[in-house]
């Protein structure tokens, strides 16, 4: 149960944090269609996060932070809003700031591809709840990956400026990659973009960006630990 909870936390935190990053695009995107599309992906990931955090709490209630007696905060929110940065299990890749739309696209391509591969594997998991979450998530992540791939190619093949930005954005996120899926390699090939040469970056815990993200995300919830929302 502890292992299952940790797995759900890792998958849930990745979804929560990337959803938060994508939600930061809201009202800032290059056009209305992209604003809506990025919000859609953020909403899908937020949905995944809620299911996964709830599953983690059910599998091992000891992972849920203890709140003041009488607090009506549900487990998913206790996990999202009342853990310190050090207790989060997300990867550094999702924590990074958005950068421009090219960097956001490059990151989404890496994350969605790796997550899709992982969700495909999870359909064989022993936990039926996780299997159901994965089945739903596979459809969503396929769309996210395809969206990112399509824009990756568009930016690579669009203008000199968009190509320059795409390459810079990819280089910025590349050191934080985990596995590079064949789907990514294929998109790079179609886009005629070379894999960056940088090695994987040494990790000593999270990025500096995570604690700033959480300071903002958690501020209202923490000011009202007995609040109802």
């Amino acid at each position, binding site marked *: 149960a502890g292992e299952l909870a940790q797995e759900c936390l890792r998958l849930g935190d990745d979804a929560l944090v990337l959803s938060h990053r994508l939600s930061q695009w809201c009202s800032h995107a290059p056009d209305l269609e992209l604003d809506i599309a990025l919000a859609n992906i953020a909403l899908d990931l937020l949905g995944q996060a809620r299911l996964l955090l709830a599953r983690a709490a059910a599998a091992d209630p000891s992972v849920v932070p203890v709140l003041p007696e009488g607090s009506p905060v549900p487990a998913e929110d206790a996990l999202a809003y009342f853990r310190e940065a050090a207790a989060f299990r997300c990867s550094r890749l999702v924590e990074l700031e958005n950068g421009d739309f090219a960097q956001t696209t490059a990151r989404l391509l890496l994350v969605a591809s790796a997550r899709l591969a992982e969700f495909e594997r999870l359909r064989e998991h022993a936990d039926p709840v996780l299997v159901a979450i994965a089945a739903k998530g596979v459809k969503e992540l396929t769309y996210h990956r395809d969206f990112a791939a399509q824009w990756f190619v568009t930016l690579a093949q669009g203008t000199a400026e968009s190509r320059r930005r795409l390459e810079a954005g990819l280089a910025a996120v590349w050191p934080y990659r985990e596995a590079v899926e064949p789907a990514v390699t294929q998109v790079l090939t179609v886009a005629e973009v070379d894999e960056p040469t940088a090695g994987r970056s040494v990790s000593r815990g999270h990025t500096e960006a995570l604690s700033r993200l959480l300071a903002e995300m958690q*501020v209202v919830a923490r000011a*009202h630990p007995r609040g109802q929302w």
Partner: protein
Amino acid sequence: TELEAGFERTIEHHDRIEPRDWMPEGYRKTLIRQIAQHAHSEIIGMQPEGNWITRAPSLRRKAILLAKVQDEAGHGLYLYSAAETLGVSRLQLTEMLIEGKQKYSSIFNYPTLSYADVGTIGWLVDGAAICNQVPLCRTSFGPYGRAMIRICKEESFHQRQGYELLMTMMRGTDEQRAMVQESVDRFWWPALMMFGPPDDESPNTAQSMAWGIKRNTNDDLRQRMVDMTVPQAEALGVTLPDPTLAWNEERGHYDFAEPDWDEFLQVIKGNGPCNAQRLAHRRRAHEDGAWVREAATAYAAKREATS
């Protein structure tokens, strides 16, 4: 002329004018201005609520808020499309907006200062918008009327969500109740100003009503809003910041005080608390996104050339 007579007949019968139909130039221009202003309001209106997406205090509320702001982008899209049937492009209208040549609803020049404002905007601002917009579902211009039907449905969903947030907060802690009251105190008067100046200072109303692109006067709609809202405020347990507010048996309406029309004029003139901030935000998003839009155009052209 024959064309004019046909137009007048359609208006008289409360039928729809469609984009391919003949229409007077003044009608077209007024409609473009009105639809554009409405579209701009949806887009600028994303900002005050969007300000709290990253700080939403529960995951459920975050999903609701993000979806709501996304809906506003969608409303902007429909409305720009309706305007485009009149022969202007979205890009032209966007440029008019960021150059300050077209307006948007003055309410969005007020800041959002607490999470309660998300609820208050849903309740009062969307509430006022619905009062304004429901009659527009019967507006004489087809594409606009059809867009309004779809938008009004979503707006009333948003309004219920906003009211439900406030209701939940009122059941919470003392601090939360105080937060709701403080928010309502700030938004009440600006919400009443959303219907525009008093009828005797609203020179365009008569022509717009004759053309069937406005169905009620500003003061009528404002009264409707007050009558609708007072019982909701009582149910919520908040005090509306107007000591003169009282039921008038004779009129069959609530009496209420005049909003501060000097403040309204200042905000319209550009001196609202957030006018510059809202336009700067929109301008920056538009300019920062230019290279993406150019890349998409260039890529589409390349694909076309090779296919």
